[in-house]
């Protein structure tokens, strides 16, 4: 099982760092899955995570100048690692002016991801900073826990408002209540509502647009034949929503959410070369 990768281009490095920073804000510990073409950051929906789950997919070719991996076996050419993304984020933080960043999997005292940053210096040889990040290797038996989640059978799918606006609204609401209700309909309207003993606040968004989902023939979805004005809603933990919004460092190309009434809200944030899906279950 081997893994080696190298980033030389500063723009790619910055981009990669931003992705890692976003992941670090969403999960304390997560699973990194490496295949020969993609990287996945996965958080599976265990109770310990508060039921949220995350699936983030990157094309390695968009970030790395060199990328070689060898999985456990030829027919299982994948590597699953458990790590603390904050460590990776820290390691990359001071690499912003690096000449090159090399990442590899090593096993000196324990399995580690070694990030070696080559920095420019006034002297003849470059400065090298190495960060050894301890990781857990996840055995093949457990790989099934980390399959890509399927898109739920949603009631309403709607594009999100400008994330910055949504974030500032949610941040203020967070001070007033622990839970927030997201409701939306197929006419491009979304409301964010909080209600406490003292006060209730609702923010209305209009003309958001609803993404067209291509359905397989003969497949019925809850969204079909649905009254356009009728709202689907779910009450979720406001902190989780705020975390998701606060973690976004760059405006996504597309941002939408799928609401399964009273069950779960599925967020999809798409950038050019990164896609992030985040599931927040509804509170009881």
């Amino acid at each position: 099982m081997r893994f080696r990768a190298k980033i030389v281009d500063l723009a790619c490095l910055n981009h990669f760092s931003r992705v890692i920073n976003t992941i670090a804000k969403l999960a304390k510990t997560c699973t990194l899955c490496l295949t020969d073409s993609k990287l996945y950051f996965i958080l599976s929906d265990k109770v310990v995570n508060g039921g949220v789950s995350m699936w983030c997919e990157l094309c390695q070719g968009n970030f790395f100048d060199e990328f070689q991996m060898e999985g456990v076996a030829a027919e299982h050419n994948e590597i699953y690692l458990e790590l603390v993304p904050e460590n990776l984020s820290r390691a990359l933080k001071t690499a912003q002016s690096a000449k090159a960043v090399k990442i590899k999997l090593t096993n000196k005292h324990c399995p580690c991801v070694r990030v070696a940053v080559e920095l420019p210096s006034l002297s003849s040889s470059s400065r090298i900073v190495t960060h050894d990040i301890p990781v857990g290797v996840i055995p093949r038996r457990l790989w099934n826990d980390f399959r890509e989640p399927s898109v739920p059978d949603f009631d309403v799918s709607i594009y999100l408002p400008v994330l910055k606006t949504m974030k500032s609204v949610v941040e203020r609401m967070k001070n007033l209540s622990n839970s927030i209700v997201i409701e939306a309909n197929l006419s491009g309207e979304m409301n964010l509502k909080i209600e406490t003993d003292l006060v209730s606040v609702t923010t209305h968004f209009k003309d958001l647009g609803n993404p067209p989902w291509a359905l397989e023939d003969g497949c019925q979805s809850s969204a079909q034949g649905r009254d356009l004005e009728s709202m689907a809603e779910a009450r979720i933990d406001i902190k989780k929503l705020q975390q998701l919004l606060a973690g976004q460092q760059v405006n996504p190309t597309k941002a939408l959410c799928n609401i399964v009434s009273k069950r779960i809200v599925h967020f999809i944030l798409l950038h050019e070369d990164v896609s992030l899906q985040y599931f927040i279950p509804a509170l009881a």
Partner: protein
Amino acid sequence: LSRIGDELYLEPTESGLSLRAVNSSRSAFASFLFAPFFFQRYEAGGPQADTELFRCKVLMKSFLGVFRSLPSLEKTVGKCLILLKPQASRLVVQLHCKYGVTKTHNLAFQECERLQAVFDTQHCASSLRAPARVLAEAVVHFPQTLAEVTLEAGPGGKISLRNYVEDEAERSKMMVTELCLAEDEFQTVAVAPGSCITFCLKEFRVSPCRGPPSQHQVTPQPLLNLLFVPQGLLAFAEASNLPLTIHYDVPGRPVIFTLDDAVLEVHLVLATLSDTESNLQPPTANGMSHLPAPSDDFADDLESYMIAMETSAYEEGSGVPPSPTFPLHTPRAAESDPEEEEEEEEEEDEGAVPGTPPHKKVWDGHRGAWGQGDGHSPLLTPHLSPQFRSLFFGSVLTPGGPGLAPTQEVLAEDSDGEY
């Protein structure tokens, strides 16, 4: 200085005004000596020529309160007068400001014995000198809350800094960062090859301290503005554009950072980790892995590891195998406990007892805290209990005072050359 201790020691001498501080566990000491030339007017003694030069200490907070807002001070204050009035028991700091305004601060002081850590840069086996900028750039790669850092003179003339990790258990959980600097980044390098010391980074760099208060350093009070340009010696050196010299010896003996200028001499003395095993073994093998050459050739094959893991997993049947990264053993629980308050003993006559504190503080790496040094902690394996020895503080004893206890550990020889 306020980042180190709670009290500011002032000692006027013939060679200038010395300001000093020490931290509560006596593992860090700093002194700034301002030559008479630095001042417009400098009078060390009183009117009678043969009175002993007076020294005192004041509360850091009070002293800094006078110089609260540096930017406005620079704009309004024309002159600053510092006057010691022993009869009135007051240290007077008078600021002569614009528009005829004079602000006079009368600070209460306590008489004290001379605060002097015993150290001698001449007797240090190794020294390094570099522009402060190089060291500041080096230190930035380490997290703000990092406590101990190990400095090592490695093979091939590489000087490396890495965060100190006490044992196996921590190493498999904590990220280890290592920075290698080439010899030619330094202005002078005179190091014993393979030499290696571990010291506390906080007093050297000083972060805004977001983490829980550390036991070996007084929690900085957020309201204080520092008299000297922002935090820590490193920032000070960078701002003054002065090179910093590091003198060190074997593990256990203090490391001394010095800054020199025409009008200012700064010393920062930090205790270093002394590993009992390091006395028997060469420094590079004191529990840390040897310095890996920064090349790509080391073995990184996890094949055998994976096979071993999978076999054992299948034998166990269902259930998650213990994650090697996040071990389930309970001693870790101690880390999340709030750090115990150490008893802060007010030392009324500091001079009378040589500086080792009554309870010898020991750095307990497991708890990340200072605790009692008597091996009570169940987490420390007895044969490998590293200790930050407290600095030995000599005191200028008045005749007839108590003599030095013969069993005190001397970490550095007394030197007559020191001020």
